[in-house]
């Protein structure tokens, strides 16, 4: 608890609109986040309420946007409990695998996310795209990690990665490209494996069950 308080105190020095709210059963951060561009200055502000789940700092804090600038609808990435959906679950897991600080979360996750919502308010779109809702978004995420456009390819590669013995580092890559395994598939596999064997096996199971729905991502 002490470490969390220090973590929060350090971060809110940089975000003077935020304040720590302690009560008997929970710790929250509330207040205004002013979005500023180094040259242009303030371009928007949001009022937020942030709580810290048990898994923090190995997961993101939960954020509710209370200024109601972001409509509470699925298309604006707001969960049914009104918290913001900030990333696909495996991506969050990779980012938080070694623990994060609250300042890192504010700087690198929440402020960019709110900026994306501001951009949406001006243009009606996410300029850099978005993952589809639910499990389709997960297919897209794994497809992107593995450079695969077909669900079949995602499953095949995950199975190969998780169930077969990996090739030697200097062996020619199985994909047929004229490159050593270490310079080809091994690199991206290592990144995917950051998610953990058990976690991936669980996802492989979920994706296999979902597989029959459609063929392409």
């Amino acid at each position, binding site marked *: 608890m002490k470490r969390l308080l220090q973590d929060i105190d350090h971060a809110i020095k940089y975000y003077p609109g935020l304040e720590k709210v302690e009560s008997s059963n929970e710790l929250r951060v509330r207040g205004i986040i002013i979005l500023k561009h180094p040259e242009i200055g303030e371009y928007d502000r949001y009022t937020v309420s942030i709580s810290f789940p048990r898994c923090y700092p190995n997961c993101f804090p939960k954020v509710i946007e209370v200024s109601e600038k972001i409509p509470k609808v699925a298309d604006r990435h707001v969960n049914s409990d009104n918290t913001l959906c900030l990333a696909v679950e495996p991506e969050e897991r990779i980012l938080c695998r070694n623990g994060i600080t609250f300042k890192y979360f504010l700087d690198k996750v929440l402020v960019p996310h709110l900026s994306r919502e*501001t951009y949406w308010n001006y243009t009606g779109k996410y300029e850099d795209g978005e993952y589809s809702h639910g499990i389709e*978004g997960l297919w897209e995420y794994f497809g992107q990690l593995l450079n695969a456009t077909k669900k079949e390819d995602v499953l095949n590669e995950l199975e190969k990665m998780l169930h077969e013995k990996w090739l030697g580092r200097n062996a020619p890559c199985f994909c047929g490209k004229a490159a050593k395994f270490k310079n080809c598939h091994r690199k991206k596999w290592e990144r995917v494996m950051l998610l953990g064997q058990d976690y991936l096996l669980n996802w492989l199971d979920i994706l296999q069950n979902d597989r029959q729905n459609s063929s392409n991502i």
Partner: protein
Amino acid sequence: MGFDKNKHLENVLESHKMKHVDDLMKKSIIKREEIKDALKEKFGDEVISRAINSGSYAKHTAINTKFDIDICQPFRYKGFGTLEEMADAVYDYFKNEYKDEDIVSYKTKKQRVSTGLTFLIDGAEIQMDVVSGRELLEDDYSSTTRLNLYVRPKNLDPATSTQTNIQKHVDLIKGKGDERCIIRLLKAWKVSSNTDIKSFFMELITIRAFNAAPEIPTDMWGKLEMAMEFIRDNVKTIRLEDPANANNVVSDTLTDLEKEMLSQKMDTMLRQINDNEENLKIYFPLNKQFHSEEEKKKLAALEMSRRGVVSKPWRND
């Protein structure tokens, strides 16, 4: 998910649009029409018709950081004894007779082929070049729109004359929307980098780049890159003639050294932009003065959204 070169170039064009100086333009156009009326009234039968619009505004290649509202006054073949008399008569009229409370009279000057007028409108200096031209033969203008201009002496170059066709210059760029965009971008670069190259030169070499391309890229950056590569590879050797007069070699307005430097500048820019595409912002900057507040905030939000570590948003419901 990186910096979008095409979007940036669209924003550069948008921020350099003349609509941002609409009020100033309207007042300038009123001045231009008054000047046309004054010329008609002063020179009466010596003029063939009211002066015609020329320059970048008439060609739709103007940018709001630098634009002239130029006109060309066609005179009759028998209107004056010599071309010099014609050019000086126009200059003398504006210098000594013409009255306008917005004209900065001490800045009225003889230029190479025109009389330069300066107006002070809402605190901004607006430059207007009045080119005077004489038809080549009696009653020839209406069918050919060709004119002879007096070219004043400069440095060691003696006075001379040149034939031109302003209408042909305006028509040259008509219907060439892609080329106009690239010309405006190159002008924005020229003005922001203080590079002294005649706009007409830029126009001709850009048009040539498009004509020489086996296939025109569909995106804005692709088109700009194509034009810049063409300039880099060809500026030192290319011969660009005034389409209205083959004897007027527009490419000769740059010295060999200036051509070499232009080629090198293009090469450096292309390499720097390919190394890091955000360098495009240095060479082709937005005109921040006329970038709307909303636009600024929108771009700020986009830029800051890209500083995060999460690739894309998602909703798990």
